[in-house]
């Protein structure tokens, strides 16, 4: 007697939102990496530029890398004009993305607090608020009492080890459901005729006479007029295949969720000084992220003492979490640049395009990246918002130094 098939009593799996095509032998554009950035780029190549002879190659399953591992915080309160430009562009796209994709993304503009714990934090934060306002990014400076009004569970006692001396507040910031974002973008790209090809690992990049001609993959060679990298932590590995190096270091970045709790946390709270950021997902989990693990690795897991330190920081800020249980922890591999700003634009090889170095903060940029990267690819020229983030800034010295200055939680 054969055993009953597990799950046989369950309803049929719903239809997929996209096809599962075999790769063709040639495409106008091949995007390497089927995460949020790759899918958004495909979506905007079709939507803004009418380019649909496109394949998105994903070595695992769609949006199973950092897109599945991030803490989904969306904000645009960066210090420098260049950063405010691209992240605010992204935030404005987020505000219309559900309608654009006709798909629910659970985009919730519940605001973000970036806490200040020292006099220098306060000075830097106030400076950033003013810089944000000059760039038409909504920003306010809140004193501890106002912080408590926005988020009643934050501990503002002056006796804390790192007391809350105030916070910047961006009301338009928020969170979204990362899977839904990926599915909505994938469905849109697929409907435009773009091939989303999963379980297809790129093993080589063919370059002839300084120009890219195609990729070799686990499913055979694919010729390409243009190749656009969107591979986050593995960007250095791909660049090596094309014969150049990138100023990136790949680090594990860990995050965790608690068990499901009643709604207790109405906003997003980030603290650079104590290295933690916390929000509560729609379903009820507290979602927390840490800083990167110190050493480079591709292991998609990190060390427990980093999580422990992160928990200590979270408890200091939110004593109410003391009895919450950790449900699971995980790690993703983030590619960090020397100035904590992304690299997006042209590569040292013709018809090859770079989008990497988003480090710990790529999710918030998803639609903005898709928009500007699609422009860069379509015109073989960086979008004006991407121009400051070209690779050559490391030679010219025109860095966009967002380390710490812009509430980047590294």
């Amino acid at each position: 007697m054969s055993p009953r098939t597990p799950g046989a009593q369950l309803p049929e799996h719903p239809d997929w939102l996209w096809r599962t095509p075999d790769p063709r032998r040639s495409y106008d554009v091949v995007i390497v990496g089927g995460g949020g950035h790759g899918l958004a780029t495909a979506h905007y190549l079709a939507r803004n530029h009418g380019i649909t002879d496109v394949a998105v190659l994903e070595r695992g399953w769609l949006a199973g890398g950092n897109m599945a591992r991030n803490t989904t915080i969306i904000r645009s309160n960066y210090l420098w004009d260049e950063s405010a430009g691209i992240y605010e562009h992204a935030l404005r796209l987020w505000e219309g993305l559900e309608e654009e994709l006709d798909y629910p993304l659970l985009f919730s503009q519940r605001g973000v607090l970036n806490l200040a714990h020292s006099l220098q934090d306060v000075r830097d934060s106030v400076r950033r608020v003013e810089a944000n306002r000059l760039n038409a990014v909504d920003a306010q400076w809140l004193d501890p009492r106002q912080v408590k009004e926005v988020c009643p569970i934050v501990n503002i006692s002056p006796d804390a080890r790192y007391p809350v001396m105030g916070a910047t507040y961006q009301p338009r910031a928020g969170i979204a459901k990362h899977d839904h974002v990926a599915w909505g973008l994938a469905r849109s790209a697929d409907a435009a005729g773009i091939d989303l090809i999963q379980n297809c690992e790129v093993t080589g990049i063919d370059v002839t006479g300084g120009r890219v001609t195609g990729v070799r993959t686990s499913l055979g060679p694919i010729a390409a007029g243009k190749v656009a990298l969107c591979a986050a932590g593995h960007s250095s590995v791909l660049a090596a295949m094309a014969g150049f190096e990138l100023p990136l270091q790949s680090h594990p970045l860990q995050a965790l969720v608690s068990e499901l709790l009643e709604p207790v946390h109405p906003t997003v709270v980030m603290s650079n000084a104590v290295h933690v950021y916390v929000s509560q997902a729609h379903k009820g989990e507290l979602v927390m992220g840490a800083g990167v693990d110190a050493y480079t690795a591709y292991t998609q897991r990190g060390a427990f003492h980093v999580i422990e330190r992160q928990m200590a920081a979270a408890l200091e800020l939110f004593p109410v979490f003391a009895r919450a249980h950790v449900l699971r922890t995980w790690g993703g591999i983030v590619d960090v640049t020397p100035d904590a700003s992304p690299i997006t634009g042209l590569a040292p090889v013709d018809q090859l395009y770079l989008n990497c170095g988003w480090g710990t903060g790529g999710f918030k940029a998803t639609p903005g990246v898709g928009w500007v990267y699609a422009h860069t690819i379509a015109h073989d020229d960086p979008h004006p918002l991407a121009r400051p983030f070209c690779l050559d800034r490391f030679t010219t010295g025109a860095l966009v130094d967002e380390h710490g200055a812009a509430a980047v939680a590294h």
Partner: protein
Amino acid sequence: MLLIPCPWCGPRDEAEFGYGGQAHVPYPEDPTALTDEEWARYLFFRNNPKGPHPERWCHAAGCRRWFNAVRNTATNEILAVYRVGEPRPVIV
């Protein structure tokens, strides 16, 4: 948590160590003679392989000495450790 074999103290918890990045990156002999490209490479470009990586560690909460290790960044396996000044071991 990695168990890192300090060449002076033996295997100790990762939490005792500081990470120093890629090993064997000498300061340029004549920095003023470098082109912008060469200076950028020295300042900003470090190897980022998925595989064996020679790197510096400091046993900060132990003997406080720097040493080198070859670690496989894909598995975190430490393939060799060696003291500063010793040649990099050949990893088969």
